[in-house]
């Protein structure tokens, strides 16, 4: 066990955990931030996606020792009132079915739009490749990303 300082959603926190503990489990088990989901644990499903210094990463693969002293944003911190343009677009398109994958989808989508504010269909598909939706909401996810891109530009 060791102590780590980590900035999550703008708030500095101290965590006592084994250095190898993935950020995913630190968030869920230690910090009570359960919006970041466990789906596979091997970087294959995207359910655990968070922003690491602004880039989308799989938190199941990010040891707390690496995450420490960096800026982490989770779904809970994406916007203060849940009104990020991507979240709003998600609600407008009523994207979720079971909803379990959606936090990860949203985190990947927001990172994509930051880098590429006006992605083509192909760019969306490729950027979202790593996020599985077992319920099959892919067409709505794409539509919501396009709506969000438009609203961010206007």
């Amino acid at each position, binding site marked *: 066990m060791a102590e780590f300082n980590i900035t999550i959603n703008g708030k500095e926190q101290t965590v006592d955990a084994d250095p190898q*503990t993935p950020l995913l489990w630190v968030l869920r*088990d230690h910090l009570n931030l359960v*919006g970041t989901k466990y789906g596979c644990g091997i970087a294959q499903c995207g359910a655990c996606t968070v922003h690491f210094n602004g880039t989308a990463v799989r938190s199941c693969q990010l040891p707390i020792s690496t995450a420490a002293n960096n800026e982490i944003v989770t779904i809970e911190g994406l916007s203060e009132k849940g009104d990020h343009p991507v979240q709003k677009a998600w609600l407008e398109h009523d994207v*979720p079915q079971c909803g379990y994958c959606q936090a990860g989808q949203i985190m990947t989508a927001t990172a994509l739009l930051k880098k590429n504010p006006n992605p083509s269909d192909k760019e969306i598909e490729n950027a979202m490749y790593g996020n599985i939706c077992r319920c*099959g909401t892919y067409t709505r996810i794409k539509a919501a990303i396009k709506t969000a891109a438009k609203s961010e530009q206007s």
Partner: protein
Amino acid sequence: MSKVKTGIGRRSFIKSVSFAGGGLLIGFNWLACKRPNEDGVEEMVLEMPEEWFEINGYLKIGDNGVVTIYSPNPEIGQNVKTSMPMIVAEELDVDWDMVVVEQAPLNTDIFTRQLAGGSQSIRQGWESLRTAGATARQMLLIAAANQLEADVADLTVDKGVISHKGSDRKLEYGEVAKAASQVAVPEEVELKDNNDFKIIGTSRKNVDGKKIVTGQPLYGLDVYKDGMLIAMVVQPPAFGMQFKSMNADEVKSMPGIVDVFTIDTYPEDMEKEWSDTAAFSKLAVVVGETTWQVMQAKKALNVEWELNPDLVKKMQILEKSAGMDGTSGLENTNIHATLMAETGARNSEVVRRDGDPEAEFKKASRIIERTYTCPFLAHNCLEPMNFFANVTEDKAELLGPIQTPEYAEKSVNKRLGFELEDIDIQMTRMGGGFGRRLYGHFLVEAAVISQKMGKPIKLVYSREDDMTNGVYRPAYHVTYRAALDENNNLTAFHVNAGGIPESPLFANRFPAGAVDNYLAESWSIDTNISVGAFRAPRSNFIAGAEQSFLDELAEEMGKDPIQFRLDMLKRAENDPVGEKNDYDPARYAGVLEMVREKSNWGKETSNVARGVSAYYCHNSYVAQILDMSVNGDQPVIHKVTCAVDCGIVVNPDAAKNMVEGGTVDGIGHAMYSQMTFKEGEPQHNNFDSYRLIRHPEAPKEIDVYFIENGIDPTGLGEPPFPPIMGALANALYKATGKRFYNQPFINELKSGVKVKG
């Protein structure tokens, strides 16, 4: 208007319901009352009332007019948590914006059939939900009439505001809720005419939408309670094996680990429920403080496994009878294939025979025979199996994702000996169900572990545990034969279907009833691999196979595939063969005609390959046309057009979402997914090697159309899933010139299919 007796499930309408506000609810908080308004953008916040009044078991009304509706059935992504309360709200005549929805816990005194399965929630809940709303409305009206000293007949309601005809006096629901809660439950109430629906048939957003997109706790895995420990199981690596011994003591001293032991979930003398399917009863268990620590301890745990002599012997005998000597008795996918191809049909039983099919096959001038297969599948709900349990001396509290809470309660009763009233089961929103969570062994395991520890625990399956735990969709195999006369008329039809360990046959479904000489046969082969219902059980294979065969048959007969089906359906409608046909030919034809028109069938563009399919299951009808091309060995799905007849559509946009999802799911599983076995061991344990459909592989566009016929609603969770597999196979043929008989199709596509130039 129709009158219904409120007598059915009368206790539902009796007041003083004890569960409201039960401490275990995952957290009814202020966010529950915040949700997007109907344009999805602006946020609306409801003020909570100072006092609630229970009107009946389905709803309570606050002094300020806010209404809480309890959604009875488990929510697995099929949207019942929104659509079932919509039905109550409709008859209650309340403004949907004033409604807050809460998941009801298991309560058999109030609700009937709290189960997510068979696409039956809306169909079977239709009348009781409406009656609950209408009864409450009537009680509010009686209370208002008393207060106004008026006749109930002179009162009207609009959005929770009661108006008196002939005066301008008005009362809001909140003002009479208290009095209404004292009114005797009426014997009989009136239900609305369909034409008067204001909520049913309009699109309403997912009531959990805001929580989902902001990452609020909703799911079983999100449950964290004071003093709660994490438990994980270690199960045998292969079907046919069992626990022998382990190095528990070494692992117990690892950081954060509290205990390591074994449990026997289902002792031999326990009377099991149908939902107690579990491949492995004796499991090693690791309990610790955090999930990661327990995962590490699991890795360090050295368990010795041994063959289960009875199980392997059974398979050795079976394999020997098929000519395979000296096998281990642990199962292999290639042995399964041999068994199904060689011995299955030898042991088939006739399930239905019309006319004299054998004679017609003898006379036939041409016989077309094709065989189709599919592999085992894992459900792979994105949220792995888990459950929270807090079993104390006198009570078992259980909270988590379960599709069959009522059966799980019986299992806990039998396993732990608690009376039913001392078992409290509450459902979380589920990260997918697909049939997997019908089988609640994980709930029973959690209860047993919690009892043993004397502490609240959350049982967590890793993805690997989840994927290798069994309860799979069975492997199936079907051979179709058609007899044609010299004029290319279809004279006889033969289906012989089987699988491991069950047959996918539906003997009385189309084309039964449309062919004079019809033979349906069935067989099955035993296995040690546990299986269970998987979204549209059996239909999820046989639909695609049948619809591929009919496509090939139409081609052989020189007919348009849609017209061919329509002609057969006409026959079944006008002059049905046999009596037990379990579909309505006119509704079946209706979706085919609709999809033909909406997709501009017959006017296809040259570089798009199209396939059609239609199927009836779970009381609903779906026809689909899939447009695709093949790029190298990569399938590209351009568009799918769907026509659906599920009667009244309660929540149209959400229903579309469900059809889209079922379509994507069907394409995904038929194209990419399979579970294989080597010496009893599942060969895939995570998404690196088990393929699920991903973003670029999904259709670029899905159009969904509903038949409007005002018929009472039927289900939608399953029906869009099976037929798309046939449309995919038929489109693949158009794209490649080659028929696809064996799922997952990607295997044959990758093995060097030349794209038709």
